[in-house]
């Protein structure tokens, strides 16, 4: 649709990266090859820019549409289709921020997500260390069992979870959701961290122990700083899967710890759906994700050998 216009505007940034690309070459052996690459690469590079832009447009269009609607009044949404807000309004956002039921949904969601991240990473760190450094009875089977939990569909566990948390008196608390999300988040954390830890040479542990470090001191002072980016990537995935999950969070809460995802169902009432507020609430659920991915962007790019190369 708008490929042709895109390609024209993107030509300039495209060249910038061609130059940036050639830079690492100098660090290594054959720098004579440099001119050849530049000439050979340029045409295909413009094409890949265009393809990338097409994909980005595909990704952004639905999100743009949500954003667009969140700044419109309901009468504008339901009237003639408009590509951008004609009658720009912040009313939908004002609705959310002035109603405790609404904004507490966000607070609740963020609370249990943070609790879950903390619990998961605390227990996953030593476990992943054990898996990456030691052989012990049942290690492979235990690891596989962990992975199967990653795959257990929450729908299977809904009813027993409800019963379990109700019985232990945790129903409708943040910690209940945080613990329930441990089902898939702890295995995930162990899996990712194990990959990172395995890429740290064993000699480092041994040297530290010879230097008289106790295990806890070594672990906190030396080892954890070494796998910082691994922990960053892990936290990103923990956040992601806990933030996006709905089924368990909705089942285990009623009013006190209700997640935003289930507060959003309030927008559909007998008199129809309140599209503007729904869109605004949707936009607000995207924001925490952007913040998190911004913080870990460099760690992700560093590459994680999830599967232990």
């Amino acid at each position, binding site marked *: 649709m708008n490929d042709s216009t895109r390609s024209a505007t993107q030509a300039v940034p495209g060249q910038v990266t061609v130059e*940036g690309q050639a830079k690492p070459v100098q660090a290594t052996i054959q720098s004579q090859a440099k001119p050849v690459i530049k000439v050979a690469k340029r045409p295909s590079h413009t094409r890949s820019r265009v393809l990338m832009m097409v994909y980005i447009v595909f990704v952004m269009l639905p999100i743009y549409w949500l954003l667009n609607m969140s700044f419109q009044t309901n009468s504008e*949404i339901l009237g003639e*289709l408009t590509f951008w807000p004609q009658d720009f309004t912040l009313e939908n956002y004002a609705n959310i921020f002035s109603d405790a039921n609404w904004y507490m949904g966000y607070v609740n969601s963020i609370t249990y997500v943070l609790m879950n991240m903390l619990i998961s990473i605390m227990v996953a760190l030593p476990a992943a*260390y054990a898996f990456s450094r030691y052989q012990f009875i049942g290690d492979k089977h235990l690891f596989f069992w962990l992975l199967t939990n990653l795959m257990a569909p929450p729908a299977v566990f809904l009813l027993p979870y409800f019963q379990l948390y109700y019985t232990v008196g945790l129903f409708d608390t943040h910690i209940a959701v945080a613990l329930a999300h441990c089902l898939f988040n702890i295995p995930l954390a162990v899996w990712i961290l194990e990959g990172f830890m395995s890429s740290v040479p064993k000699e480092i542990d041994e040297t530290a122990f010879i230097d008289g470090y106790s295990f806890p001191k070594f672990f906190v002072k030396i080892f954890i700083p070494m796998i910082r980016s691994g922990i960053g990537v892990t936290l990103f995935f923990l956040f992601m899967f806990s933030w996006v*999950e709905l089924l368990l969070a909705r089942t285990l809460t009623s009013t006190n710890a209700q997640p935003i995802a289930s507060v959003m169902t309030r927008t559909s009432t007998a008199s129809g759906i309140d599209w503007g507020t729904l869109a605004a609430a949707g936009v607000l659920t*995207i924001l925490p994700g952007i913040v998190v991915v911004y913080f870990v962007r460099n760690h992700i*790019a560093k590459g994680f050998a999830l599967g232990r190369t």
Partner: protein
Amino acid sequence: MNNKVRNNKAWWLILPMLLLVAFSAIIPLMTVVNYSVQDVFDAQTRYFTGTEWFVQMLNDPTLQSALGRQFAFSLTILAIEVPLGIGIALLMPKKGWQASAILILVTLPLLIPWNVVGSIWQIFTRGDIGLMGWSLRELGYSYNITRSPLDAWITIVIMDVWHWTPLIALLCYSGLRAIPEAYYQAARIDRASRWAIFRYIQLPKLTNVLVIGILLRFMHSFMIYAEPFVLTGGGPGSSTTFLSQALAIMATAQFDVGPSAAFSLIYFLIILLVSWVFYTAIMNMQKDKKDGGA
């Protein structure tokens, strides 16, 4: 990495994790098994039914068709998302502010709560207020996901591609970043074609992350619930009712604890088999690589 120390004291490091996961996994699983052999009204009023629910579920046509639909769906999205994800990863710039910006934009769909993903696409595809639905109608195609099963099906596939291709792209992108620049230079000196570079340098490095990506995607596509629930409600008819939803309808709406537990177990066994095959394949691949390298 073969020089792992044999030390059963490592169990102490595992223990906290084990207790937590067991609390969340084993107790509920045991309960599901117990449900599956009984007709439960409440904790006191219940009747032992033996294998009855299993017989009923295995022969239930709605569930069989949900299962078939599920496999068709999972294979379709894998066939689209994996090549597309690799492609995106190859296209993503490696340096500069653009790399960060594109990384964030590409990752965005992964971080949206699943029901919001459903809402976004529900809004986007509506004929009256949605850009996509409206455009298709303007173009003369009578697009309607609440009437046409084909439209609903295609829309859900597009939604899933939109939602999850980033995961494959992200994994592949980080896999590609792990390839030393020297490899590419050697290839350039040999005047290797773009395809040869991909086939002999990039793809081998990607195998590991790809297997993980495929495994994760397969499993998550099996759990897909919130998005189609919001977008199509499983309809029109039951044309987009996938396994999880069929299960959730049975467990929550009809409150048939016994049959849905039996069904859960069958579902779980399918997942278990598939993941075991994948896991064994990954392990053997890594072992072969190690043996070959040594």
